[in-house]
């Protein structure tokens, strides 16, 4: 995914990370990695549950009694909190195994998709929080741009979770 010229930089970063005392601790404590992975999956739950509910509502399914705007206000904190915990546990997992993870092409693709998904979620958050001329925040139907972003972000979250599990297999 990332061009060959960058591989040397990744190797340097990985070497430095794996020598840090935090990395050594995470490598030595046998239950550290499964525990971090469990936290990672639980945080993914917070994100996925909220992302699916919100996504289905934004594409027009009547999954909630709330209009898109108010539902987004309810669910976006779940998405951001989930993401923060995913970043923390995921960051520690990288520190634990930097050599394997940073050079892993599925991991690199995952991080790239993550950036786009975060961007799409920020855009959704902005669009649903500003009422348009018709006061769309409280109308039952989300605007077409929001609907498109909802489909994109849902597809990306699923692809990111998929990539996450496949990292161990490539």
């Amino acid at each position, binding site marked *: 995914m990332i061009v060959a010229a960058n591989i040397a930089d990744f190797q340097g970063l990985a070497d430095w990370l794996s020598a840090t005392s935090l990395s050594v601790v995470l490598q030595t404590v046998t239950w550290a990695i499964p525990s971090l992975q*469990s936290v990672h999956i639980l945080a993914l*739950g*917070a*994100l996925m549950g*909220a992302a699916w*509910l919100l996504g289905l509502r934004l594409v027009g399914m009547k*999954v909630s009694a709330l209009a898109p705007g108010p539902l987004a206000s309810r669910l976006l904190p779940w998405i951001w909190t989930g993401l923060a915990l995913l970043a923390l546990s995921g960051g520690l997992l990288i520190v634990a195994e930097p050599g394997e993870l940073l050079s892993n092409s599925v991991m690199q693709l995952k991080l790239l998709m993550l950036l786009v998904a975060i961007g799409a979620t920020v855009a959704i958050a902005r669009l649903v929080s500003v009422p348009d001329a018709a006061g769309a925040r409280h109308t039952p139907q989300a605007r077409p741009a929001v609907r498109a972003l909802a489909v994109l972000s849902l597809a990306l979250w699923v692809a990111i979770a998929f990539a996450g599990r496949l990292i161990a297999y490539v």
Partner: protein
Amino acid sequence: MILEFCQWLEHTSLGVAIGESLWLFPILESLHVIALAVVVGSIAMMDLRLLGALARDRAVTELAAETLPLTWGAFAAAAITGFLLFASNASYYYDNTPFRVKIVLLGLAGANMLYFHRATWRTVSTWDRAAQLPIAARLAGAVSLGTWILVVIFGRWIGFV
């Protein structure tokens, strides 16, 4: 008896196909994680409302109508993918302690939910909009949240023993 069933299952063409394929297992595993994540996330929303921690201003029935279809849809996907993963190496999983604990926990979560919907739910109209719910509802939320968190932990653990 159960072991014989496991041995039969892993030798069916389905079990053999998943066990021998290079990609079927990881694909099923990914789908299983995604489905389980949706189950846990959507159930946690309901549990935290029952506990009185979040969404205290929303009716319990309204939140249930919002989350339950997603929870059940995702649970069906998790159960199907989980069964297929199990079929690939059934007698190994049957002997795997974290797997056994996970199945017991799933039974516990199911019994808790059944009791909640059959018994506690009958009086929902009297506490639907209350911020602080009756002890039976709060307990159901706590047991549900606890068992599902443990299901994830033991599920992840299956691959580490």
